[in-house]
């Protein structure tokens, strides 16, 4: 630089200096442009793939679409469980100018509870403002109409339809169908463990009980999805591609809703259970437990008030057909007779004298017959027809518990029937091992005596009783009970549940006939215990009554229904089948602390044979 400055300006020197500086400046600019460019090159060329992916992650979202749940029909094609649209009043907060004001206004048109309002305000705090939130669920038709007329006054408010399960027969089929309800955290964890959670991404409800639960996978279907492009606030701009969901398969049941209605009507306010089985294939024609309840209450989340009402002492939530444990009582006598015949304890002609009680030498206790003065001379037929206790006390005592227990197990006692719902108990078929395990006590010969008339430690469910009877009427052939006969998907029909279990084979098959004849007499002979109820039927039925005492009557006293409290009165049981010569159905009716089961069985059979006349019986049984 110039140290000594001339007083006169040297324009060319200044111009040179400036030109040099301008040149340096331009070089500097070029350098910085190179820096910018190399950085852009790195981003746009080297890391292009990475940013391309992130750009797509930003804009493309996959939205799952729930499949439609399979429908459930009865054996005649009557729709039992369907999917109906429900209408919810929903609000997109972003589109509402004055939320408080709008909520006030809408309350004047549609009743909105304080609870609904609080829940809604809580919900919108946790979600994005453009997302629709339910203000009121399940509007009725009037509300939908009222809103539609006024919709223009409520921007951001709309009515949205969603499919929800609906059981058109309400409480008639609850214990068989079960119900669906909102999928909860626990079930979601379970699904995750089983690697099925992705299939439920869009699903609201899951089968909680009955067939809905047992056939959850079949009914549910396969989730679909759509790839959509969204903007930065998550609003969907357009659909890029879609995989439609696959609806679940439909179920066709063996149940006949008509029989269910007969059962419900007949049981009225009695506690009890009805099972009707198809003797040909084990298909369950009726499975009714009383009292029942409306499963639709659960679909949309049951209120605590309604739920508490179901927790009463009549226990409507229990499925009595498969979970009720009752002493099978005299209904086991036909099988007990078959066993005694097989074991040569008795034969067709043996008679014994019944004085009205049974006793063992050196034991003071007397096992009384229901008929205080006794049945006199009794053979195996009379023992079943008149339900003589003493005969079977004696037979059981001589058979011993192990033979009884082993034999009865082959008829399904003490085990799950295998019916296709999960709510089932094994009940108790007593044995030496069982008692030792349960009470840490050994089996006394005296314990066996009441087992001979289906009491003592022995308990069974109505489905077990029906199933055991079914094996008997089929002479050992074992068709386990089931509710679903066909799974239908479009035109693809899968017949299911027609497998047989290993049959019970007798050394002398004529022994079946003895018990079956005796059961026929029970209904047909004037002295039979079920004669009166079945007078005048146009079909030929057979059956066996049973009465189980709830409280033990002290030695030397007699049962008097009127003097006992209602819940201490006897349970009564009836098993029957018809037609006698070629059984088509088996019925079992159990009533708690009440009687009249025989009449109920008759109503069921009347209905069945009115619809399926015996002489016009189809050959192509379903």
């Amino acid at each position, binding site marked *: 630089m110039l140290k000594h400055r001339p007083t006169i300006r*040297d324009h060319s020197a200044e111009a040179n200096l400036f030109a040099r500086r301008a040149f340096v400046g*331009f070089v500097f600019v070029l350098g910085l442009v190179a820096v910018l*460019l190399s950085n852009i090159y790195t981003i746009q060329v080297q890391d292009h793939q990475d940013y391309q992916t992130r750009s797509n992650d*930003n804009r493309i979202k996959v939205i799952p679409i729930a499949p439609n749940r399979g429908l459930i029909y009865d054996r005649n094609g009557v729709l039992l469980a369907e999917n109906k649209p429900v209408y919810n009043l929903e609000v997109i907060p972003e589109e509402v100018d004055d939320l408080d004001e709008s909520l006030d206004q809408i309350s004047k048109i549609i009743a909105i509870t304080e609870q609904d309002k609080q829940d809604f305000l809580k919900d919108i705090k946790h979600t994005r403002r453009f997302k629709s939130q339910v203000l009121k669920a399940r509007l009725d038709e009037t509300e939908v109409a009222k809103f539609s007329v006024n919709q223009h006054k409520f921007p951001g408010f709309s009515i949205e339809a969603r499919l929800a399960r609906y059981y058109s027969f309400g409480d008639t089929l609850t214990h068989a169908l079960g119900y669906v309800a909102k999928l909860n955290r626990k079930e979601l964890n379970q699904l995750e463990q089983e690697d099925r959670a992705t299939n439920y991404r869009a699903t609201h409800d899951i089968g909680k009980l009955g067939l809905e639960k047992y056939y959850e996978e079949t009914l549910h279907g396969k989730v679909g999805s759509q790839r959509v492009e969204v903007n930065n606030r998550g609003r969907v701009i357009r659909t890029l591609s879609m995989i439609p969901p696959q609806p679940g398969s439909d179920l066709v049941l063996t149940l006949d809703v008509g029989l269910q209605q007969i059962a419900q009507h007949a049981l009225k306010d009695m506690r009890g259970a009805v099972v009707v089985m198809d003797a040909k294939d084990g298909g369950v024609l009726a499975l009714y437990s009383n009292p029942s309840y409306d499963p639709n209450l659960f679909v949309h989340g049951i209120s605590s008030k309604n739920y508490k009402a179901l927790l009463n002492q009549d226990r409507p939530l229990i499925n009595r057909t498969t979970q009720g444990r009752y002493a099978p009582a005299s209904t086991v006598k036909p099988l007990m007779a078959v066993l005694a015949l097989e074991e040569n304890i008795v034969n067709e002609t043996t008679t014994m004298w019944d004085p009205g009680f049974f006793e063992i030498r050196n034991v003071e206790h007397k096992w009384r017959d229901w008929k205080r003065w006794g049945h006199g001379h009794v053979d195996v037929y009379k023992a079943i027809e008149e339900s003589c206790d003493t005969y079977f006390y004696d037979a059981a005592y001589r058979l011993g518990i192990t033979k009884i227990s082993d034999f009865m197990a082959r008829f399904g006692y003490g085990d799950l029937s295998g019916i296709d719902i999960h709510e089932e108990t094994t009940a108790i078929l007593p044995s030496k091992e069982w008692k030792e395990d349960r009470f840490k006590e050994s089996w006394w010969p005296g314990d066996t005596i009441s087992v001979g008339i289906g009491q003592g430690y022995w308990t069974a469910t109505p489905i077990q009783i029906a199933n055991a009877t079914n094996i008997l009427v089929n002479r050992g052939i074992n068709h386990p009970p089931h509710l679903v006969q066909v799974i239908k998907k479009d035109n693809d029909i899968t017949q299911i549940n027609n497998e047989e279990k290993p049959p019970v084979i007798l050394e002398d098959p004529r022994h079946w006939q003895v018990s079956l004849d005796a059961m026929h007499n029970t209904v047909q002979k004037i002295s039979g215990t079920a004669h009166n109820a079945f007078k005048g039927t146009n079909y030929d039925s057979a059956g066996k009554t049973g009465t189980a005492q709830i409280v033990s009557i002290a030695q030397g006293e007699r049962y008097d229904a009127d003097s006992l409290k209602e819940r201490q009165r006897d349970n009564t049981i009836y098993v029957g089948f018809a037609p006698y010569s070629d059984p088509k159905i088996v019925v079992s009716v159990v009533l708690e602390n009440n009687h009249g089961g025989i009449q109920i069985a008759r109503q069921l059979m009347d209905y069945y044979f009115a619809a399926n006349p015996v002489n016009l019986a189809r050959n192509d049984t379903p």
Partner: protein
Amino acid sequence: MTALHDKRSIWMRMHLDLPLLIALLIMMAGSIMVVYSASGQESSMMIRHMTRMGGAIVAMIVLAQFSPATLKRLAIPLYCIGLLMLVGVLLFGVSSKGAQRWLDLGITRFQPAELMKLAVPMTVAWYIGRNHLPPRPMHLIIGFMIVMLPTLLIKEQPDLGTAILIASSGIFVLFLSGLSWRLIGFLSSMVTLAAWPFWHYGMHDYQKQRVLTFLDPESDPLGSGYHIIQSKIAIGSGGVEGKGWLQGTQSQLEFLPERHTDFIFSVLSEEFGLFGVCVLLSLYLFIIGRGLYIAVNAQDAFGKLLAGALTLTFFVYVFVNIGMVSGLLPVVGVPLPLISYGGTSMVTLMAGFGIIMSIATDKRMLLK
């Protein structure tokens, strides 16, 4: 000679520099395309944008009619008015988005900082150009003070971006006037040394956070890093060829913030790719080259210094904006010159080019 003179005279008489004018008009045409895409094809916004462009072109033509001698005379009064208005802004200014930048003049709002973008280089160029080049230390100090006074006032608003632009415009005058390299070296090492204690003792935590976020935007992807990440995704996903005009998903689906203003470069990069970026940078380089050429050929020191400083300041816009949106520099609000939507800054820039054209077509010396 006369024929040649006559041939040039059409533009000379209009005081316009044809190559520069053509480059500027190409840029503006580009701007219309990109802003149209970035605004989501909103026509009302396009009308406003094009109106302002028209205004900016008028401002350029008007400024070009002032001779450099007139500009020289106007420098001091403009500077003084500007300073008074800046003080006024701090005292009675109108706030918007947390910063107090506007002066409400009753009829219209006015941003005095825009005036200073021109007044500062004009004043410094006038002051330094009065004396011999290179300037004496005393002149340097006074020149520096002329720059720093408005800079600090603007930084108080706060408007860091504009403060940087105004400081640069003044400092470029000093640089071009021949500020000694030794002094430049000394000053830059002082700044570097001061940075360390400043980081430890002079900065608030939130300010440090801002710097850290700039260094690693992924550390706060939803907070302050969001802008930069989305911007880099837009640029990067554009690739070499770009996604096509109006096809940029980052911008069309609004993932990109401030798309039509400060982040418009990202929109351009996403839709036109590296190819578009190269065209843009070439145009910028042409304009800068032309500006410096005009400066070198200017008739006097004032003209040289002013044209050179305005041109280099124009590059500061380019560098700060592109550096910011591509993650090289922290986020400071500087628009992409001639492309971003935003009226005032475009009017000021074009007025600056008007001054450059006035200098380019100054006939005073030619007539000598």
